[in-house]
């Protein structure tokens, strides 16, 4: 209750929460495409590569206005993306090496420009580096408005080009063959991802922005195999972590907002990896143990089946020790075998009389259909 009261009263908190939520939604939606295309780390590269652009924009235009700096960041982010894709296209260098090289060289260039700016007379460069490390707590109304406008533009574009995005993301060859220009679609996706990264920079900073792009999408991927649901879930996870991260960090003293958001989204990723139905690790363990038990039961049933046909008509009932001997089981494993037999009995494949077991018609047809392939 105290939390709600606090949010209702505190205007700055409302603003920052709104900003983080918008950022979570935008990066969640666009990050899904980056993650599926195995370009998750592009966010990391672009956000580092933005530094020289920010510095150049400041040097040329001489103002610290958010719009100007964003434009500079955008241009150098796009240039970096272009160089990375060109290196991969025209040489044997792999995507990850190209990424690491361009990221660090651009950042180095940015540092050179930064030291140059520091020497300029009357340069008010203080705070330029904050732009790249991000400070969610200093978000202004104008920043949130920029995010809102970009969100309103970007998300309809995703909906409008949904079919194109989907096909270019999953099957480029097919997309080409039915006449889509994947080059242009990929450029559009990349362009939008770069925009999302740049606007996220000043909220959560370089490193945390790459997390915001990857983590919600990875978490969402675990719950579904459908792209549409994945994108929606990813936006939801992004929004939730943005808002809760902001609120938690405002409740605890000296807790920075960006890292708190990352902590929360990482928690969501971990939970998704473990508990997601179908894909989750927990489910996988269950599935494996169930599969293993079924295989054991099948082996026992096949042995009873073989004993059944080896023997004469008068001794269809087979005692426990005989089954055990036929399976070469150890002395200790009585209980295990009993369990398997009980389960087979429960499934109605074998009958039990006193301590004697026999396979019934249902069991024989099960074996013929599922194991011996009806070949007899």
């Amino acid at each position: 209750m105290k939390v709600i009261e606090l949010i209702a009263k505190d205007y700055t908190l409302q603003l920052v929460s709104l900003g983080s939520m918008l950022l979570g939604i935008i990066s969640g939606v666009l990050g899904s495409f980056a993650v599926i295309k195995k370009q998750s780390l592009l966010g990391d590269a672009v956000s580092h590569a933005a530094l020289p652009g920010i510095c150049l924009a400041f040097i040329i235009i001489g103002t610290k206005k958010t719009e100007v700096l964003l434009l500079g960041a955008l241009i150098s982010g796009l240039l970096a993306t272009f160089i990375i894709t060109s290196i991969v296209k025209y040489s044997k260098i792999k995507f990850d090496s190209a990424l690491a090289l361009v990221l660090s060289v651009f950042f180095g260039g940015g540092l050179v420009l930064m030291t140059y700016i520091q020497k300029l007379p009357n340069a008010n460069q203080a705070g330029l580096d904050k732009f790249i490390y991000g400070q969610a707590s200093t978000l202004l109304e104008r920043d949130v408005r920029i995010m809102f406008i970009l969100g309103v533009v970007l998300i309809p574009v995703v909906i409008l080009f949904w079919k194109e995005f989907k096909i270019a993301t999953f099957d480029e060859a097919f997309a080409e063959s039915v006449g889509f220009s994947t080059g242009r679609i990929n450029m559009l996706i990349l362009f939008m991802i770069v925009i999302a990264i740049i606007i996220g920079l000043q909220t959560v900073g370089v490193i945390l922005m790459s997390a915001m792009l990857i983590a919600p999408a990875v978490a969402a991927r675990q719950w579904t195999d459908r792209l549409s649901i994945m994108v929606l879930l990813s936006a939801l996870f992004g929004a939730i972590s943005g808002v809760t991260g902001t609120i938690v960090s405002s409740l605890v003293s000296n807790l920075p907002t960006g890292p708190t958001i990352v902590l929360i989204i990482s928690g969501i990723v971990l939970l998704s990896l473990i508990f997601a139905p179908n894909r989750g690790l927990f489910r996988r363990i269950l599935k494996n143990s169930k599969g293993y038990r079924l295989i054991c039961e099948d082996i026992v049933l096949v042995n009873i089946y073989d004993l059944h046909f080896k023997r004469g008509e008068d001794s269809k009932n087979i005692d426990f020790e005989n089954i055990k001997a036929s399976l070469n089981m150890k002395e200790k494993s009585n209980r295990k075998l009993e369990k398997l037999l009980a389960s087979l009995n429960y499934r109605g494949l074998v009958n039990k009389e006193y301590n004697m077991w026999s396979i019934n018609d249902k069991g024989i047809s099960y074996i013929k259909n599922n194991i011996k392939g009806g070949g007899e």
Partner: protein
Amino acid sequence: MSAELEIQVIAVIVAVACSLPGVFLVLRKMSMMSDSITHTILLGIVIAFFITKDLNSPLLIVGAALVGVLTVFLTELLNNTKLLSKDSSIGIVFPLLFSIAIIIISKYAGSVHLDTDSVLLGELAFAPFNRLIVFGVDIGAKSIYTMGAILIINLLFVIIFFKELKIVTFDPALAAVLGFMPSLVHYGLMTLVSITAVGAFESVGSILVVAFMIGPPVTAYLLTEDLKKMIIIDIIISTINGILGYKFAETLDVSIAGSMALMTGLVFLLVFIFTPKNGLMSKCLMKSKKEVLKRA
């Protein structure tokens, strides 16, 4: 030794020391792991710093190396679930560890002097101020000795385990069959990457370590397909980067480490365009030649 010469020597030592393990990172398609490790070692430094309360303690290197290896381990743990791709695993692990480090720093920001900028950015120009004094005698900048030691360790590792590194890099399955223990070599390499990164961070800052680790090997990779030649070219290129970078920074009076990274990019670009066999230029020439032939 004058301060300028000392800076120059440190610049070259750092560049070469970083580029040696970088060769294997590039060949093993793990370049972005260097970016990941250079960020997460911050957590190791922070934790070790809170234990020792001393920024010069050797425990800092131990802590950083441990966290570096932990980063690799966690990334592979995630990757082995097959629920997410390798790059996503990297992108989940390092922001998390980095965030934890930032949170620890901000929670105790008032009581300690340790800010993220000094780790991430670093400044080579300040290196000569930190002297190593033995029995009251000033024997030179401390960085020369720490980075020199790291350079020697890296060099010895590459020379002694050359065969192992080669086989594990190019055919891990065969290496495992022959009993070379790929994971041991792998983690050995990762430990070296972490130690090198933490040694270099105070002079060049952790992000630019990535440039020195990946830039020269990638450039050398364009020029040769022989591992031995690649390592030699790699050492030559990183030396050139170190010297040119410092000269550039000196003339314009800008960040030395940044200039070195910029030179790394420039040298790469030149090689990328003008390599005789695979360069952009010869490819374009070939293309136009083919077109002429087609028309003829």
